[in-house]
Structure formats: C-alpha cells, structure tokens
C-alpha cells in the first residue's frame, strides 16, 4: 500500500524536467523506500491538468496524499528541503518517519 501520492508536473522534456524527474525518483526510492507512488505529468501534453491544479511554475511537485496538500516548485535538487517540504523528518537511522 502506498502511503504517499506525489505528482510531479513538468513542462516538456527539458534538461530541467529531466533533473526534476531524476531527483523525485531518487527521493522516492531512497528516502521513502517505496512507500510513495510518483506520477509524472507533462503539462504540455495535458494542459487541462495544469489548469485544474493551478500550476504556475514548473517543475511543481504536489503531495496529494496524505493530506494536507503540499506544493513545491523547482527541480528538487535540495533533498533536505524536499523532505522538509513533505513534512518528513529524517531520524538519522535510515528510515524517515512521519512527524
């Protein structure tokens, strides 16, 4: 069962999009240990989704689950900031815990 539902919105296949996807994937694999489902959406292909989610900046990462909604913009290069933004804190023992 996935505890986290994360959606990453990117605009086209740019270097920045690629970097954000790689960073998101790495965080999900390494930090969330497979507890997260990551969906990647290219808003150039699905502009109506960008409208629904009110995406302004790309890349945007939205934590849909668990609530509340969290939004992050940027290429997710700073892992610690991302974890904090996801309301996760790193307990040092290798496993992140929900605070």
């Amino acid at each position: 069962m996935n505890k986290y539902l994360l959606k990453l919105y990117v605009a086209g296949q740019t270097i920045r999009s690629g970097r954000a996807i790689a960073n998101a994937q790495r965080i999900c694999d390494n930090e969330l240990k497979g507890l997260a489902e990551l969906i990647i959406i290219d808003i150039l292909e699905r502009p109506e989704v960008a409208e629904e989610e009110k995406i302004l900046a790309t890349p945007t990462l939205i934590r849909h689950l668990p609530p509340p909604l969290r939004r992050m913009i940027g290429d997710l290069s700073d892992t610690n900031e991302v974890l904090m933004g996801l309301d996760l804190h790193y307990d040092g023992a290798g496993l992140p815990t929900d605070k």
Partner: protein
Amino acid sequence: MRNMEINDRVQIEKLETGIPGFDFISIGGLPKQRITLVSGTAGSAKTVFATQFLAEGILKADEPGVFVTFEESAADIRKNVKGFGWDIKKWERDSKWAFIDASPQPGDESIEVGDYDLAGLLTRIDHAVQKLKAKRVSIDSLGAIFTQFSDPSIVRKELFRLVSALKRMDVTAVVTAECTEDYGAISRYGVEEFVADNVVILRNILEGEKRRRTLEILKFRGTGHAKGEFPFTVLPDQGLIIIPLSAIELKQKSSDIRITSGNQALDEMCGGGFFRDSIVLVSGATGTGKTLLTTEFVAGGVDNDERCLLFAFEESREQLFRNAIGWGRHFDQMEKEGKLKVVCEYPESAGLEDHLIVIKSEIENFKPNRVAVDSLSALERISTQKGFREFVISVTSFIKHQEIAGLFTSTTPSLMGGGSVTETHISTITDSIILLRYVEMYGEMKRGLTVLKMRGSMHNKDIREFAIDSEGMHIGKPFRNVTGILAGTPQHLSPGEIDRLGDLFNEH
C-alpha cells in the same frame, strides 16, 4: 527608411473595445493584436477596465476572452462584477470566457526547491486561448506575480517570455499594473519595460476633498489617439464610462428657426425668440425669477406641442409643481400628456460625471425638443472647478449635437449685480445670456431683466422692469433714470442729468 516607417504606421489596426467613450478617445480602440499596459494606483478601476474589455468583447463583438488573474481569485471577480450585469459564470459555460486563476492560493504556499520557470502559466494561457479561439486577453495585475515568487529575476525573465508568447497568439491584450502615485512612475516592479508600446493610465485624484477619475492614453506606438486626461466614472450597473470632453468637435449645425421663450415680451426683446438649437443662460441672484423663466420656457414649449425635459437640482418635485401652479402652469397635466418630463435630483446624490451620464441618457430616451436645467450652480458645489467646467462643456455640446434648445440657470452669489463662476465657464459657449437683477429704487426692490447677448441676431438692449403675479412674468418698461444696474450699484439720475447726457450724443 522613412517610407517603411510610414507603411508600418498604416498597418496598425485597432480593435474596438466597446468600452463607452474609450473607442472615441482612442480613435478606434486598442491597437489590434498588441499588448496595452493599463496602469493606475490602487482603486483606480484597473480590474474593472480589464474585465470590461473582455465583457464588452463578448457582448458587442462575440469575441471570446481569457482573463488571467494574479491578484483576486476568479470567484471574487465573478462575484464583484455581477453588479455590472456581467454574468461570467454563464459565459464560462458557453465557452466565451476562461479564467486563468493564478492568484495566491490560501494556505498552500509553494516551497521553492531549486530551479524553476513559469511554463505552467504560459501553457495554461496558450491552452485557454486556443480552446476558446480567444481574441482578447486580460492580465490583472502583472506586478502581483512578483509577490508570489522569491526570485524576481526569474519572474522578470518569464514575463518577457509571456509577453512575446502573447504577441504570437493573435490576441489583443490588456495588461494592468499597479503604480504608487497618480503622477509618477508608470508602474511598480518596472513592469512597463515588458509592455511599453501602448500605455493607458487610470487616475483617481483627490482634488479639493473630491475624487476625480481620469483616463489618459499616454502612448500608442505608431498610431493616433486623443491626448490628455479624460474624466470617467464607474457606474454600478454599467461599468466604466469615459467622457470624451476635449475631443468634442464644434461641428453642430446651426439653425435660424426661432422658438418661443414662453414669454411674448421676452421673445420680442430677443428679436423673435430663441434659436431652435441654441443654449441660453439665465443668470441672476436668488429669487430674481430664474425658476419662473425656466417654467415659462418649458410651458411655452409644451404649448407649441414640443417635448420638454426639465432637470431640477434645487427644488423637489412637489415644490416645483406647486410653484408652477402659482404662476398658472400645470406641470402634472403636461406630464400626463407625455410632453414633459421632470427629473428631480439632489446634487449630492451622485458625482458630477454620474449626473452627466443621467442627463445624457434621459435626453436620449425622452428625445425632447427643449431641455432646461435649474440650476447649474447647484451642481457646481459638488465638483472641482475643473470638473465643473468639463461638465458644462460636455452638457452643452451634447445638447447642441441633438439640435435642440437648452436653457440653464445660474445663481449669482451676490444679490445685486455680480458674476458667478458658472457664468465665466459657460458664457462663451452659450448663444444667449439673459440677466435677471434686483434694482433698488427709492427704498423698494424691483426686478430687472436684460438680454445681454443674442448670438446671430439683433436684440433689445434695454434693462426692463418686470413683475411676477399668478400668471407669470410680466415684462414692463425699461428703467430709464437708473444707471449701474448690472454692476450692482444702481444710481438714480435726475431728469436734468438725463437731458445733459442725451445732449452729449446729440449729433445735430
């Protein structure tokens, strides 16, 4: 080189906005398929302008529009403009209107982690424009996007992209920006560097404790527009209305058909009555008979089967009707016959611009042959001097364009003689001026009347005494042995003196 420039100039088309008055002062509307910056301080009606630009497009030209909001939420805008009669919800259902809601979302602040751009916004605008086949785009307000992101340099770069994307989209766009002063830098955040080709400034100036809204087209690159500030007002059920004053042309026709003033003796003094499309100013101190003259003017019209419209700003309906009965004129009867309409308003009930619009629309709807306003001076106290002058010019030229007769009254501040501000503002545009004055004679107050000016006609230059009774005004004989009436210092001349003066001009 020179030729090329001229060619470019010819090619700039304009898009009629449909905003009342704007297309007139902009000589045809906003430059088509270009971006216009609309700048103004807080509360200068920028959002109304941006909204109305789209609304009029849908209502008058069936052109769909996309509204990008950075400040207010879409829900707020839908609600706020409903009073103007714009049903955005319905337009959204009909695919005539689309919101791009880029306003800050409450409780969900974005955390910035790394590098980003605003492709999301661009994609959404592009998508909405294509989906609706939109012809118009409004962005309100550009500067507000800076507050949503921490790095202004990114926003700056992205705005350049946004602006160049808009230019490619085959849309005419209005971009609003906030400025901090009415007369100062065009905008905050230096937004004007992105959109500088066409600039419109909205002002909301505090002048002598009164607010005055004006609109100025600062520039339209490569195409013409009227220059200077034009007053405008925001009407609760219509939106923005711009009043094109200085752009009024003096091209009204002039007729030599005479109409009655409602008083036979006065007609004779004027050389046979007023001209049909002339503006008459009646000036006098309080109680000299201005309202009486207005009543006679109206009644004279009705007697000749003309339609009359009377705007009263000094007295209530009841008072006015009762006074008229006192002079043997029955307004209620005339109204019943549909020949008269009396509009009574308290001057303070609205701004001067709003009164102007009411006057204009009443004239348009009732289609009168003659219009009377009693009194202009009552309106003077609710406005700034400049605003009042513009109002008078606008009303008179509007009436002249309808080719109907207009009679205005103006109260002089002093009982004896004297001029008023109203007179100095209006006297050059009026065709006729009639002065009513008190004359003190041997411890008694008498009333005098004179036709000071009668454009295009001979007139009697006497200062005549007149009396008022239950049948109205009776003009009598000239004051023969008094001088200085108009100056307010009547002096009695003895018969001997009159003979002496007469001898001075004796030519034989």
